C-alpha cells in the first residue's frame, strides 16, 4: 500500500489525475473499440449532455421537467430540415466544396440550438409560473402538444406543404467529406470515428460551460432557489425570472444534445417528442444522482451500458423495461443520491476498511465486512418488523 493511499482516496479535491485519465480514455477509446461500441459511446455522450442540461433545472433549481424531449425533437427536426432543405437552398455545397457536409453540420447545430432556445423562451415563460407537480405536468403537456403537432404536421398543413412527414419522420444522410485528400462519411453508422470526435469536442465544451454556470453566482442562486425560494425572493432576487433563464439555458443545451444525437440516428420522428423520451434524462439523473454535477453523466453511462448488457440476453431483452425498472428500484431504495452517492459511500467504506487493515490486518477487514452485512440485515429486519407491526395494528391484530 503506497503512502497516504487512504487519505488520497478519501480526499475529494485531488481529481486532476482522474480527469486526465477520463480524457485520455475518451480520446483513445474509439481506436481500441469496434464500430458498434464507438457508436454506443457517441450516443452515450449525447445523453450525458442531455441529462446534465436537464439536471440544471432539476437537481440545481428544483424544477422537475417532464417534457425535455421537446427540445431534442425540435432541434432534431431543425437539423433534418437544415440538411435536406436549408443547406441546398443556401448553396453550402457550392461554397464549401469537399467540406460541405461539415459546414452543413455546423449550420444544423446552430439552427437546432436556436430553435430549441426559442422554444424554451416561449414555453419557459409560461411554465416557470408553476412549481412542483404542476410544473412537471405543464412541461409534459407542452411536449405532448409538440408531439401531436409534428405527428399531424400541423405547420405543414397550414403552409400547404409537407414538412415533418407524419409518423415516419425525416430520414437524412450527412454525406461524404473530402478534405486534404481524405474522403470519409461525416456520420459513418458502422464506425462513426469522425463523428465521435466532433461529438466529444462539442460535448466537452458544453459540459465545461454548464459546469462553469453551476459554479457561478448564477448557479448559487439556483441552489438557493431549490432550497428556499421565499428566502431568495426576500433577498431581492426575482425568482421567476431566474427560473425562466435557467429553463432557457437547460432547453438550449438539451437542444444541442438533440442536434448532436439526431444525425447519428439519421432519422427524426415524433417519438423523440413523446413522453417516454422525456423520461430518459429523468431516469438517468435519478440513477446517477441529481445532487452531484456529474451524477447525470454517470447515470447516462449506467443506463446506456446496462441497456447494452440487457440486449445481450434475449430473455432479459424481451422484458427490458422490467429489468431496468428493478435496477431503478434498487437505486432509489438503497442508494443515497444515485450511483454517484453509492460510489461515494463505497469509497468511504473502503477508506475505513484500509484503516482496519492497518490496525488489525485481514481479520480487521473481515470483521468490518461482517459488521456491514449485519448492519444491513438489521436494517432490513427492523424495517420489515416495523412494517408488519403497523400493518397488524391497522387490521386490529395483536392490539
Amino acid at each position: 500500500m503506497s503512502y497516504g493511499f487512504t487519505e488520497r482516496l478519501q480526499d475529494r479535491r485531488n481529481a486532476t489525475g482522474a480527469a486526465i485519465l477520463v480524457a485520455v480514455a475518451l480520446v483513445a477509446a474509439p481506436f481500441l473499440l469496434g464500430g458498434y461500441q464507438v457508436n454506443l459511446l457517441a450516443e452515450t455522450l449525447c445523453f450525458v449532455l442531455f441529462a446534465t442540461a436537464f439536471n440544471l433545472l432539476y437537481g440545481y433549481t428544483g424544477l422537475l421537467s417532464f417534457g425535455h424531449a421537446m427540445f431534442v425533437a425540435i432541434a432534431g427536426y431543425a437539423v433534418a430540415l437544415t440538411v435536406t432543405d436549408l443547406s441546398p437552398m443556401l448553396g453550402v455545397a457550392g461554397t464549401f466544396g469537399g467540406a460541405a457536409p461539415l459546414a452543413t453540420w455546423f449550420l444544423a447545430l446552430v439552427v437546432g440550438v436556436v430553435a430549441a432556445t426559442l422554444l424554451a423562451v416561449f414555453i419557459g415563460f409560461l411554465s416557470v409560473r408553476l412549481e412542483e407537480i404542476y410544473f412537471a405536468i405543464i412541461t409534459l403537456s407542452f411536449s405532448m402538444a409538440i408531439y401531436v403537432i409534428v405527428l399531424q404536421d400541423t405547420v405543414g398543413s397550414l403552409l400547404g406543404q409537407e414538412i415533418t412527414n407524419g409518423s415516419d419522420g425525416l430520414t437524412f444522410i450527412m454525406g461524404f467529406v473530402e478534405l486534404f485528400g481524405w474522403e470519409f462519411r461525416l456520420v459513418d453508422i458502422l464506425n462513426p470515428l469522425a463523428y465521435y470526435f466532433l461529438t466529444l469536442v462539442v460535448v466537452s465544451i458544453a459540459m465545461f460551460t454548464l459546469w462553469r454556470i453551476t459554479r457561478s453566482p448564477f448557479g448559487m442562486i439556483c441552489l438557493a432557489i431549490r432550497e428556499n425560494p421565499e428566502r431568495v425572493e426576500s433577498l431581492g432576487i426575482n425568482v421567476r425570472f431566474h427560473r425562466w433563464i435557467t429553463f432557457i439555458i437547460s432547453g438550449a443545451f438539451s437542444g444541442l444534445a438533440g442536434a448532436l444525437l439526431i444525425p447519428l440516428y439519421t432519422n427524426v420522428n415524433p417519438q423523440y417528442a413523446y413522453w417516454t423520451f422525456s423520461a430518459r434524462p429523468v431516469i438517468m439523473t435519478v440513477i446517477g444522482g441529481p445532487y452531484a454535477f456529474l451524477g447525470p453523466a454517470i447515470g447516462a453511462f449506467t443506463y446506456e451500458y446496462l441497456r447494452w448488457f440487457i440486449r445481450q440476453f434475449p430473455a432479459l431483452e424481451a422484458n427490458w423495461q422490467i429489468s431496468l425498472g428493478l435496477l431503478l428500484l434498487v437505486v432509489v431504495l438503497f442508494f443515497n443520491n444515485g450511483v454517484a452517492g453509492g460510489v461515494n459511500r463505497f469509497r468511504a467504506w473502503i477508506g475505513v476498511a484500509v484503516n482496519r487493515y492497518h490496525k488489525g490486518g485481514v481479520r480487521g477487514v473481515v470483521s468490518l465486512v461482517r459488521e456491514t452485512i449485519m448492519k444491513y440485515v438489521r436494517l432490513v429486519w427492523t424495517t420489515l418488523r416495523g412494517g408488519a407491526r403497523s400493518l397488524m395494528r391497522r387490521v386490529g391484530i395483536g392490539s
Partner: protein
Amino acid sequence: MPANDSPAEGGVEITQSRAVDRRTFLAAAGTGATVGLAGCLGGGGGEGVRIGGVYLLSGLAEALGAGSAAAAEVAVDAINEEGGINGNDVEIEIRDHGDNPQRQMRSLVQEFGADVMIGLTSSGVTLNSGPTIEQLRVPFTLTDIGTPYITEPDTETYGDYYEDNGTAAGLPNLFRTNSNTSHMTYAIARFIQENYADTGTLSIANMGPSYAYGEQTWEYVQAYMDGLGVDYEVVASEFPELGATDMTPQINSVISADPDLLFTSFWAGDTVTFVSQAAEQGLFDQVDDVFDTIGADPTNFEALGDTMPEGLHFSGWYWPGAYGTEADQNFIDLYQSTYEDDSEVLAYPTFTGGSTWAAVQIYKDAIEAAGGTNPDDVISEMEGYTYEDDPRGSVTLDAETHQATASCVIGESSFDADVPYDGAGQVNTQTYTLDRETSLELLDGSGLPPGL
C-alpha cells in the same frame, strides 16, 4: 429523495463534484473492461452462416412478428436437417425492434456477426432504417413490409426519399419476398371491379390505423380503382389511433354514412379490435362487403373465434393451402410438427409464413451459388433469382427493384374452412399478381410509385 440530504452550500458542492471525477474514471474503467470483454465475444465470423432477424416481438404487433420468427426458425431447421449451407450449419438470432431497431440491426451485424438479415414489422421503421441498412452492406430481405416506396428505385421520376423528400427509397442491398401494398390494394380494387362494379356508383368508406400505413393503403386503393375505371364515391374515411381500444366513434360514423363497401387496413391486434366492435355495432349487417389488406391471418381469426362474420373478403400475403403446391404442403407440415406442442405459437403458419420461409431459402441458394457469404456476391446472385419451391408458387426477385413477383391472396371468411384451430378460415381463395408495366399504367397520374 429528500432535499436536505443534499449540500446546501456551494462550497460543499465543489468538493463533491471534484470527487466525482474519480468516479467517472471508475465508470470509464469499468466500461472499458466490459467493452474489451465484448470485443472478444463479438465479431462472429467462423465457419457457419449466421442469419440475423429483427421483428416486433412485443406490444401491439407481437403476434405478427412472432409468426415470422417462427417461420424463419422452421426454415433454418429444415436447412440444417439437410446438411446446412455449403455443409455449414446455419445459426439464426431474432430480436425485438426494442426501443431502437437500427441499433438492433447494427448489433446483429457488428456483434453477432450476421452474414444476412431478414425482418422488420413496421414500414416506418423500414424507411427510417434505409441509411443503416445500406451502410451495413449485408443482404437484407423484408418479409413483412407493406410500403411500396422501399422497393422503388426510380428516383428520377419519384424523387429520392432520403434526399429530395421523394417516394423512391430503393436500396442496393434490400430485397422483399412478400407482396407489398401495391399488390394488395390492386387485388382489392380488382376484386371490387370484378364483383361489384356493375351496380352503378359504389359508395365506399375507409377505415385504417392513423399512421403512414393506413393513409398509404387508402391512397393506393383509390388510385387503382381510378385506374381500373371503378365508378365510386367516398362517403367516409376514418383513422382510429394505432392500437386504439375503442373504435366505436369511427365505426358509428361509418355506419351513419351507410356505404356499400368498406375498405380497411387494420392488422394484428387492430383487426381483432375492429372486427369485434364493428360486429357489436351491427356494421357487418349493413354493408355488402368488407375488405382488409393484411387482416387474413390465422392468429386474428383464432382470437376472434365465432365473432368473425362469414363472407367478408380479407386479404393477406400468404394463406396456408391457398396455392395447391407441394412446397406449401411441405411447409405447413413442417410448421405444424414443430409447433404442435408449443404453448405460445399457434401451430399454423401466419400470413407472413410464405415470405419468411422464402427469404431464408433464397439466402441458402444464393450463398451456395456465390460460394460464400461475401455480401456483393450474394446480392448479385439474388438479383433476378427465381425460387421455384416457394410455397406460393415460383417467385422471382426483380433485378432492378428487388421486389419478389409474389402473389397476394383474397379469401372469403368462413367456418367451413379446414383449419386446425377454433375459428374462421378462408375459403374460395384467389391469388393476384401484378407486374410493373400494368401498375405504372394504372397508377398513371396519381404520382404514386409502383414499387415492384
